[in-house]
């Protein structure tokens, strides 16, 4: 058992992009509810945006995630209110397991952004014009790298560098490596034990 789990800091993300256009893309679209009857998040990647990617006969439809050129993408570029709907963590999990490491968008639903942070995935925001320009660029340059600098709050693609914004708490959590509450809290195991033992109903980690 590794008590000394290091939480990686997330200072930058570099990789090619994929544009998913549209506002108010909800978690039901990202991962339809019927794929939640599973015991691990492991295989969820292949069901990301399933109903947008496949028709009733499971034939591929036109969708950026189906395009061979985007198969290695690690940055998803989206529009407004991405990830709204239910609180299911299955949504960011599915996208992460498909291969996404970071999001750039006009705005994100609060719970979705929180769930992403718990996985160490930045959700960077920019105005509509900036986002559209990046989307157009990744569509033309599917192999081109986007370089996200979390501390400087910038994204560089081709010869262009644009400003994006990350919410303060998220930026701090990513840069200081405190986004993973498991590791963070595990480091306090001794204080946890003391708090527990001071309770009238716990003794030696058991209920009494």
């Amino acid at each position: 058992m590794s008590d000394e789990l290091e939480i990686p800091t997330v200072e930058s993300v570099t990789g090619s992009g994929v544009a998913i256009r549209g506002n108010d893309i909800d978690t039901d679209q990202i991962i339809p509810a019927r794929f939640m009857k599973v015991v691990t998040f492991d295989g969820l990647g292949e069901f990301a945006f399933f109903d947008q990617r496949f028709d009733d006969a499971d034939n591929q439809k036109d969708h950026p995630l189906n395009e061979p050129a985007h198969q290695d993408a690690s940055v998803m570029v989206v529009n407004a209110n991405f990830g709204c709907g239910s609180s299911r963590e299955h949504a960011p999990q599915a996208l992460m397991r498909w291969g996404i490491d970071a999001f750039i968008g006009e705005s994100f639903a609060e719970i979705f952004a929180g769930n992403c942070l718990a996985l160490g995935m930045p959700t960077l925001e920019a105005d509509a014009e900036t986002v559209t320009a990046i989307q157009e660029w990744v569509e033309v340059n599917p192999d081109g790298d986007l370089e996200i600098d979390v501390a400087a709050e910038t994204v560089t693609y081709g010869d262009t560098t644009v400003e994006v914004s990350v919410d303060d708490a998220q930026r701090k959590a990513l840069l200081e490596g405190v986004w993973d509450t498991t590791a963070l809290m595990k480091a306090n195991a001794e204080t946890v034990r003391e708090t527990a033992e001071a309770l009238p109903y716990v003794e030696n980690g058991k209920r009494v």
Partner: protein
Amino acid sequence: MSEGTLYDKVWDRHAVTRLPTGQDQLFVGLHLIHEVTSPQAFGMLRERDLEVAYPDLTHATVDHIVPTSSKDRPYRDDAAEEMMAELEENVRESGIEFSHPETGEQGIVHVIGPEQGLTQPGTTIVCGDSHTSTHGAFGALAFGIGTSQIRDVLATGTVAMEKQQVRKIEVTGDLGDGVEAKDVILEIIRRLGTEGGVGYVYEYAGEAIENMDMEGRMSICNMSIEGGARAGYVNPDETTYAWLEGREEVPEDGAFEERKAYWESIRSDPDAEYDDVVTIDGGALEPVVTWGTTPGQGVGVTEPIPEPEALPAEKVDTARRAQEHMRVEPGDTMEGYEVDVAFLGSCTNARLPDLRRAARIVKGREVDPDVRAMVVPGSQQVKAAAEAEGLDEIFTEAGFDWRGAGCSMCLGMNEDQLEGDEACASSSNRNFVGRQGSKDGRTVLMNPRMVAAAAINGEVTDVRKIKEVALNE
């Protein structure tokens, strides 16, 4: 900020430290797990080579996917079987106690926790299920958590949380005939809205709550989440202590008295400060039923269904769509609304007193021939106790299907589902479109006696018009 409330006291006793994220790290006294939301968290633990930190403070059951027709293995539904097998493996590996169907103690997580005395005042309780608020009925601080948080709790015995505000909801007076805890909470949600409780914990108080049995308090706390509050609680009192005494996990004799002193100490102080106080006249209530597709769209059974336009602007659209889906007209009452299915079950209303009250309506009568009616007891123990009193016979003689314990048609994740556009009188807590397994299904939430009456008459019925029959207890 609140001060001197049960919430403040229990929070302080369990707070480990302030995290760099600004949240408090809170010790978890009881972690309940079930088959739907826990397997992914165990998977994450394995990925990181971590172990369960407090297996003795963790307890498992299976409820969402279990068939209620037969407990024979393997389950007919492969996905259900896989989830069950995974849970069995996880609890075995980690040494976690499991109320397995073979033990006779299986049931809906929010029914078995209290039943076994796992749920106690002054403790913190979490579960990957939003209706964990139920356990607040005992004066516990209990709330639902997400999958990453389940991982946190498994690995560390703690959860990262921000403290919320406390709203006291005082229900005054005596509830009238036919009016129950369910009606009180439906009224609270109707009045304060489904988002009214966001950022708040609800403290339920007042004579109506004090005079209520534990099962009624559980029904109320259960639906806190439908009102947007992640947790709700009732201060523990003699009713609580009497209910707990003698249960499996509760200390006995001298230790019980000692523990009681702790329970008394965490009650909200008489001069506690609240962030908000709301008063509701319990004496003025009538049975409440929903007319729409959110739990906040409720109405007294004899009252007219509202005109969407008469509602606050942001609710007009949803109300209109809800009325279309439910096929109800503003100005009508819900009385007389035809139902095809009657579901008596769920963690809101499937405990012994719920079934007893419903049986008093059903006894000697017959279910309408066009209605399929079922009783799904909340746990195997509830089922056994009901059978010992002969309630099963009363229900089956009337034409109800008497089933095994589980979540069942509350969410239709097993084979118990609505079909097509069936309308269902349901004692459960959510009437969202598609909730009971059919996207065209129509759910009308109500108290268990009202469900019984609807089953008999084939339509929503004011239970006060039906004469109750005494049971030979």
